[in-house]
């Protein structure tokens, strides 16, 4: 296989007890009645294992909103996959955690919205913070890999040091500090979420100092905010190169924002075989090689490193999925990014109110 899939992201449900203002789930979410069954997932995981996929990430929505997560973990391990659970912690008690670990769960990534209860609950649109602390304590008592994930943005970056201090004493081995990615609900709320350049510079300095201080105790991964870097991110490490994502209805995607793009047909597993979708379906091949690239990507020496950036971002910002990602400073449409950043960094025009839209929950 020229493109060997490494990871399968299984969005097993869009249902979620949280309503985060930066949720990157699509605006059109799938309902419970559209979710595929345990047996369908089992079949998909087996096929993924046979294709040489290594990593399975059970996510959502909140994966624990499904009652069969323990069975999904077991199915993933039976298919010889490494199983990660990406969770808010809501719905996890000691008995369920033990069952998940017994079923072979390898790693838990637990989300926090802030290091302070008030804002954390405000961003999540629900009172989950206290419960999350109890879940973190439960995980720490058990021998399982533990990552804390905190999504950062304009309204919580001031507390970055407190977040790191919290992770340090939480028992986690790894802290992921991820700036909001501007898709879905987050795209709708991006003017309220984008950090200022001053905030970004400060946060990079804090993270670098903390990495040095915590070496060997806590790993810190930092996801930069879109729009600020000079070059775009190598989104998904290339369209259809290493990762696939399957939504609650079994629809197989190169990334979770892809369905909004016109003219691409995505197929469902297990009705269609995963191998056929990955290797031969037109949508997976649409941006896979370099033949789709416009200038300046086509002759750019960075094209093998960032693959022209993110297709979904190009579509969201220019209306053309085959345009150079406007984040790139060489992109014809880069002015869109520049203008947004000027607006965000001009003191008088920074939106100060919390006029954001909360994610709603599908039924």
């Amino acid at each position, binding site marked *: 296989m020229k493109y060997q899939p490494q990871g399968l992201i299984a969005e097993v449900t869009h249902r979620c007890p949280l309503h985060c203002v930066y949720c990157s789930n699509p605006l059109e979410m799938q309902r419970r009645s559209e979710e595929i069954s345990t047996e369908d997932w089992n079949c998909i995981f087996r096929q993924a294992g046979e294709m040489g996929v*290594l*990593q399975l990430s059970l996510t959502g929505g909140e994966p624990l909103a499904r009652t069969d997560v323990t069975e999904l973990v077991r199915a993933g391990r039976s298919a010889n996959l490494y199983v990660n659970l990406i969770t808010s912690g809501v719905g996890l008690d000691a008995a369920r955690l033990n069952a998940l670990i017994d079923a072979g769960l390898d*790693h838990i990534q637990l989300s926090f919205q802030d290091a302070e209860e008030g804002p954390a609950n405000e961003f999540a649109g629900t009172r989950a913070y206290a419960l999350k602390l109890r879940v973190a304590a439960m995980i720490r008592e058990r*021998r399982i890999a533990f990552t804390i994930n905190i999504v950062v943005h304009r309204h919580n970056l001031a507390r970055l040091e407190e977040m790191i201090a919290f992770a340090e004493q939480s028992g986690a081995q790894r802290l992921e500090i991820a700036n909001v990615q501007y898709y879905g609900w987050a795209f709708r709320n991006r003017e309220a979420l984008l950090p200022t350049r001053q905030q970004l510079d400060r946060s990079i300095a804090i993270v670098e100092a903390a990495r040095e201080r915590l070496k060997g105790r806590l790993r810190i991964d930092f996801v930069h905010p879109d729009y600020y870097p000079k070059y775009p991110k190598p989104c998904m490490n290339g369209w259809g190169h290493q990762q696939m994502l399957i939504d609650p209805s079994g629809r197989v995607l190169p990334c979770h924002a892809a369905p909004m793009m016109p003219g691409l047909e995505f197929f469902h597993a297990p009705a269609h075989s995963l191998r056929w979708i990955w290797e031969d379906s037109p949508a997976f091949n649409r941006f896979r090689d370099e033949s789709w690239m416009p200038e300046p990507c086509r002759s750019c020496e960075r094209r093998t490193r960032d693959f022209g950036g993110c297709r979904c971002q190009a579509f969201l910002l220019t209306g053309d999925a085959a345009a150079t990602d406007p984040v790139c400073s060489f992109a014809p449409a880069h002015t869109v990014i520049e203008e947004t950043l000027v607006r965000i960094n001009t003191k008088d025009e920074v939106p100060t109110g919390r006029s954001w839209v909360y994610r709603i929950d599908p039924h």
Partner: protein
Amino acid sequence: MSEGVKDRAPRLAPGCRLGIGEGQEDLLLIPEGALRLKGPARAIVELCDGERTLCEILEELTRRYPSDDATRIETEVIALLGRLRDRGALEFV
């Protein structure tokens, strides 16, 4: 690594395990990733069971590879385990 570490027993950190089955033979699976183990690295990691001390592991490897220079084995094993520890994949108990 410090001197005293030879009397301690290395083991894989939580969530880190050796790949099993076709295509995973030379992989160490870690949270959301995998590390490739080259040459004898897998055999070395297999000895890191949290029971054997680093000293005992070195003795065992010297027995297994009698023609190799014991000092070189020690240097290479310590370098490998140091890298895995820095990556968060190995701990000393």
